[in-house]
C-alpha cells in the first residue's frame, strides 16, 4: 500500500503545481492584452473561473495529501468515491489535452511539445493512481 500512498501524495504535489501555474496563465502565455479586450463581465467570469479552478485543485491536493493513507488502504465508502471522481476528472482532462486543444499550439515548437506531453502524461498518471485507489 505504501507505493499507492506515495503515488497519491505525488499527485497531490503535482496538483499544487498546476494550481499555482494555472493562476498565472495570462502572464505566462502573455495573454494580458487579449484578456483586457474582453467585455467587462466576460473578463470577470474568466478570472473567477481561473481562480476557482486553481482553488479547487488546491483543495483536491490538500484532501488527497491528508487522506492518502485512507485512500490507499481502500474499503472506505467516501474514499473510494473521492478517488473515483478524481480518476474520472483527470481522465477527462487527459482526453481533452488531445481532443480539445489543437496540435497547432505545440507542434513544431520543442518547448511547447514537451509541456504538452508532460501535462498529458502527468494527468494520465494521476488518473491511474486515483483509479487504483478507487478500485479496492
Amino acid at each position: 500500500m505504501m507505493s499507492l500512498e506515495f503515488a497519491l501524495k505525488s499527485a497531490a504535489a503535482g496538483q499544487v503545481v498546476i494550481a499555482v501555474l494555472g493562476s498565472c496563465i495570462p502572464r505566462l502565455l502573455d495573454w494580458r492584452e487579449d484578456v483586457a479586450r474582453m467585455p467587462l463581465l466576460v473578463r470577470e467570469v474568466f478570472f473567477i473561473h481561473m481562480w476557482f479552478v486553481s482553488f479547487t485543485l488546491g483543495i483536491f491536493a490538500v484532501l488527497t495529501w491528508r487522506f492518502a493513507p485512507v485512500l490507499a488502504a481502500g474499503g472506505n465508502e467516501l474514499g473510494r468515491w473521492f478517488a473515483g471522481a478524481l480518476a474520472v476528472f483527470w481522465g477527462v482532462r487527459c482526453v481533452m489535452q488531445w481532443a480539445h486543444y489543437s496540435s497547432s499550439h505545440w507542434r513544431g515548437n520543442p518547448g511547447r511539445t514537451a509541456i504538452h506531453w508532460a501535462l498529458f502524461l502527468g494527468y494520465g498518471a494521476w488518473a491511474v493512481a486515483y483509479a487504483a485507489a478507487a478500485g479496492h
Partner: protein
Amino acid sequence: MTIDPKTLELLVRAAGAGQLGILVASALVPRVLDWRTALAPLPPQLRRLFWVYGVFIVLTITGFGLLTIFHARALAEGEPLARGLAGFICVFWGARLMVQFFVFDARPFLTNAWLRLGYHTLTAAFVALSLLFGWLALGPRG
C-alpha cells in the same frame, strides 16, 4: 445543539438536488451573456481555455451533487474524510457567495422579474449550501 441524523441525511440529499439544479441555471449563462460573440475575437487557445474552465467547474459541481445524493448517510455520520469533503464543499460555496456579493454586478442583466427571482434564489442557495456543509464539517454529532 445536534440535528437528528435522519433529518440531516434528508437535508444532505436535498442539497445534492440543489447543486444539480444550480448546474441547470449555470447552463443558461453562456447564452444570456452571449459568450460566443464575446469570445470570438480572442486567440483560439485562450477561447478554448475559457471553455475548459467551464467544463472543469461543471464537473466539480456534478461531483458535489452526486456525492451528496448517493453518500448522504456517510456525510451525515461525520467520519474524518466526510468532514474534510464537507469542509471543501463549504469553502467552495462560501467563495461563490462572496463572488455573488462582492465581484459581479449583475444588476444590468436582471432585466425582468424571472431573472431577478433566479438571481436571488441562487444567492439563497449559496447561503444554504455554505451553512449546511459548514455544519457537516464542524458540527457535533449525536
